[in-house]
């Protein structure tokens, strides 16, 4: 297991440099005049141009110049310095403010998925073909079928504006209550998938031979379901939720955008919209690390849950 983790960490280093290089290239290599892009419509004085050219090493041109700037960037990155956005703010500071909001939102979404999705999935799996099972099937298909870009404004309009059950937007430094509705919207997709996955897994495991064995041992039904079936059924569900947490942690561009939540996705979207190259690359570099680490944790967790899986 130790060797496996070590190997995975080495792979992560490669993946990290690969992805940052690609994102860096996509953001900067095609840019015509980054200084004019920064200034927008306004004119740029020669003094300003000279200052910025020096600051961002723009005098180096061509592929060589690109790699020069990339390695310069990575050098800073490895020292924990994410650089500055074009607006002059430190990207480290931006993330420090945005991340806690996104993490809170992600945890609410995950909690919604676990509490409602897994529980309903277990019940639907036990009572296959019941009214409960069929209604969850219809509901989850509905949720899975509606994209967030539709679901989020609908929820905002009805629950936030019309019936005023929740604050319609979050604003800066949002409270738990303000994040609840966006969390539910964000979690509804994970909820639906978790429900379907749990249901299928429980239904399948209930038919397994080891359940027949457990019954022939004379165990009570509740114990068979809770101890034997659940433990096996949750292996794929936990794996899914782990990957999902990685996704949620990297921010939800649409949900954060609709509800005006100053999280990671919100800032990333702003960076893309304003062509703020350093901000985009900075955020994505960190997201890559979050994603890689969460995937590794999931794989390790998988081996812990299922003794048949051993990594060597």
């Amino acid at each position, binding site marked *: 297991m130790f060797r496996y983790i070590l190997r995975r960490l080495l792979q992560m280093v490669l993946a990290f440099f690969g992805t940052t290089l690609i994102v860096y290239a996509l953001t900067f290599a095609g840019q015509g005049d980054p200084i004019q892009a920064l200034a927008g419509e306004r004119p740029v004085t020669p003094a300003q141009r000279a200052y910025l050219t020096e600051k961002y090493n723009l005098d180096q041109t061509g592929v060589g110049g690109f790699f020069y700037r990339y390695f310069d960037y990575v050098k800073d990155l490895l020292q924990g310095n994410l650089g500055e956005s074009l607006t002059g703010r430190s990207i480290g500071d931006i993330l420090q403010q945005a991340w806690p909001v996104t993490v809170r939102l992600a945890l609410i979404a995950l909690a919604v998925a676990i509490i409602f999705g897994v529980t309903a999935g277990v019940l639907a799996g036990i009572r296959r073909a019941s009214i409960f099972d069929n209604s969850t099937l219809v509901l989850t298909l509905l949720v899975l079928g509606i994209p967030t870009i539709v679901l989020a404004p609908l929820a905002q309009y009805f629950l936030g504006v019309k019936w005023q059950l929740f604050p319609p937007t979050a604003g800066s430094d949002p409270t738990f209550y303000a994040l609840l509705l966006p969390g539910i919207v964000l979690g509804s997709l994970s909820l639906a998938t978790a429900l379907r996955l749990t249901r299928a897994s429980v239904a399948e495991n209930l038919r397994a031979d080891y359940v027949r*064995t457990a019954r*022939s*041992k*004379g165990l009570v039904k509740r*114990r068979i379901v809770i101890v034997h079936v659940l433990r096996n059924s949750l292996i794929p569900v936990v794996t899914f939720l782990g990957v999902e947490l990685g996704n949620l942690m990297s921010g939800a561009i649409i949900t954060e955008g609709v509800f005006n939540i100053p999280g990671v996705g919100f800032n990333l979207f702003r960076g893309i919209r304003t062509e703020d190259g350093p901000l985009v690359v900075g955020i994505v570099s960190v997201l890559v690390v979050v994603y890689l680490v969460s995937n590794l944790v999931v794989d390790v967790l998988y081996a812990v849950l299922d003794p048949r899986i051993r990594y060597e």
Partner: protein
Amino acid sequence: MTVQPTPASATPEGGHLLELRDLHVEFRTNEGVARVINGVSYHLDAGETLAVLGESGSGKSVTAQAIMGILDTPPAFVRSGQILYKGEDLLTRSEEQRRQVRGKEIAMIFQDALSALNPVFPVGWQIGETLRQRAGMSRADARRRAVELMDLVKIPGAAKRIGDYPHQFSGGMRQRVMIAMALALDPKVLIADEPTTALDVTVQAQIMDLLADLRRELNMAMILITHDLGVVAGVADRIAVMYAGRIVEHADVRSLYKAPAHPYTKGLLESIPRLDVRGQELSTIKGLPPNLMRIPSGCPFHPRCPYVQQVCVDEVPHDLVLGDGRTSACHFAQEVRDDSIAR
């Protein structure tokens, strides 16, 4: 030449440990009703071994699951009949009372131990679970007893292997774990449902020997379900041959091997490869087992039977008593037996 009497089952009427009377089980599916068990009656006395023989789909496993009360309902329903254990009909008991019987009075082992054991728990935990849940043992006591049980079924280094998971054992060792688990509560009856089918031939023999030894040592009665005539010979006292959810022939092992009195049994015996008959094509039973949703009229075996007459198509044969406790559900049982002896 006459049939040798072997009174292995000479117990007074009504005093059987386990007795099935005219059991009917059907599967209600969307495609229709499949009559899987159609009037099975057999009995088992303390300390004896009954082999239930038949091909896949003949209803032997379903009968066993009905005895255990672990049929999947739906689709399986016990339509009628009695399952008497120590004189009391289990089918009239509540689910809770039947649960008490499982494992403690009647235990069962299954064909494929790899899937029959829970993959995510150590074997010692799984053996101990029965003891903790059913006998109220403490964790430590259950663990100690689990090691003893694993020793009993001759798993080498039992104390060291108690924390291992099912997939870490070989097929034979896994089946031993299953057996240890079934023996945990000292059952009076052990039902072994094709216990050696998933194993190598050499391991099969070891497991059969172990089961026979344990049965003797612990003085259990055993129902051995199998489709393998070779497995039966050394261990069983009596054989019940099943076809299409019926017992077609019932006899002690020696008489049955010597002179089968049902064409189906005869066909089964003739289809065993023999070393002394070379250069001849292996004889088989023509045709396929019947579709249980459309069981043939009269004798269900008639479409495949070499002895078939009009009466076989028209009338369901009753059990013909041939003496020595033998029965055969064939209109021509006498002729078939005489043929078998003459051969």
